[in-house]
């Protein structure tokens, strides 16, 4: 994601971004709009749930992780269960672990700023700082710092204003809570499309084993006399379906195991069993799931 680079560079150099936002920098507008849209909605959402603006204000400041803040509203409305809150925060944010691993080198030698950089390592900070090319003459520590700070400010101001002005809204907010569902459906769909694209990319690399690996039970297939390297078009429908679903196995496990746990444990208690079931399943299924997943 490069759309934020220009703004951050100008900011790091002390320019006024707004004066420089000519046709050359149209891309700083959507990201600002994005933070404000979600931040404002979050604030209004918290207001509609019965919380004063102090909650979105302090939570956006201290947590600074959009998705888990939406979930935290629900945790606050449910029964007191601090352990579940901790587990939920760790699991929802588990992806940050991998952002951190990717940023180990980049954030080295940034001095005192490093603490803040790590604290503010949200999706947006990561995607911008990971992909940004630091221009010559700009200190990388300050560059990263201002990207993180701007993200933090956008989110914080959006959430706080949403919390304050939520009370002024005259329209019926019933159903606004669906914004959280919609957000996660979009994130889930994005991940699904990414997995599809990733598997297609791998399939286009000539690797004779790949197709055979995609079959669910190659041994059973061979026992029935199916040649292991049949051309793609002749493969049985079940095998093609399996090959299509293989890159989505993790997504499907997440949906399926969560649904099972929801049925078994009920809406109030299914989260922790579901998280454990997912962790156990991906650990046990590591061999089949890890195939072809290695990044070069």
């Amino acid at each position, binding site marked *: 994601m490069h759309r934020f680079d220009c703004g951050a560079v100008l900011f790091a150099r002390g320019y006024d971004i707004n004066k420089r936002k000519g046709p050359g920098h149209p891309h700083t507008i959507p990201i600002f709009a994005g933070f404000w849209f979600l931040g404002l909605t979050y604030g209004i959402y918290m207001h509609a749930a019965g919380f004063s603006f102090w909650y979105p204000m302090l939570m956006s400041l201290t947590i*600074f992780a959009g998705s888990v803040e939406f979930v935290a509203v629900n945790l606050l409305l449910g029964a007191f269960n601090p*352990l579940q809150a901790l587990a939920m925060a760790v699991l929802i*944010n588990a992806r940050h672990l991998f952002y*951190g691993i990717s940023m180990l080198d980049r954030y080295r030698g940034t001095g005192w700023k490093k603490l803040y950089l790590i604290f503010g390592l949200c999706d947006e900070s990561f995607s911008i700082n990971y992909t940004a090319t630091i221009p010559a003459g700009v200190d990388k520590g300050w560059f990263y710092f201002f990207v993180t700070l701007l993200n933090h400010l956008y989110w914080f101001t959006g959430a706080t204003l949403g919390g304050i002005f939520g009370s002024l809204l005259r329209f019926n907010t019933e159903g606004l809570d669906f914004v959280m569902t919609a957000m996660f*459906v979009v994130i889930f769909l994005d991940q699904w499309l990414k997995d599809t694209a990733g598997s297609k990319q791998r399939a286009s690399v000539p690797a004779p084993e790949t197709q055979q690996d995609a079959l669910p039970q190659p041994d059973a297939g061979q026992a029935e006399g199916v040649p292991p390297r049949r051309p793609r078009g002749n493969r049985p429908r079940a095998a093609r379906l399996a090959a299509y679903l293989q890159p989505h196995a*993790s997504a499907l496990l997440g949906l399926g195991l969560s649904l099972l746990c929801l049925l078994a444990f009920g809406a109030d208690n299914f989260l922790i069993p579901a998280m454990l079931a997912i962790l156990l399943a991906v650990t046990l299924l590591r061999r089949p799931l890890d195939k072809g997943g290695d990044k070069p």
Partner: protein
Amino acid sequence: MTLPQQILTIGMVVLGTALTRFIPFLLFPVGKPTPRYIQYLGRVLPAAVFGLLVVYCLRSVSLLTGTHGLPELIAIAVVIALHLWKRQMLLSIAGGTVVYMLLVQLVF
């Protein structure tokens, strides 16, 4: 929930979030390869967790009573259609939410 309980809950979320961000910098020194199991989890966990979160959002929907989950189903279909069409995250979220609000306020 009392105020101290709320503060503790939010504190736990802050702690959990910060843990996920700080642990790599504490555990994996620069220059040493990350354990393969951790790398593997990094590849497969996000998709599963997003699936869990979708189910979590819909945990209170009852298929047998009330509206039978129809407003949710329709709105999710709108979100998916909008997103496959335009791939604009905010448009998909806003569009689906507006449709859902109209459905629960005016139709169901």
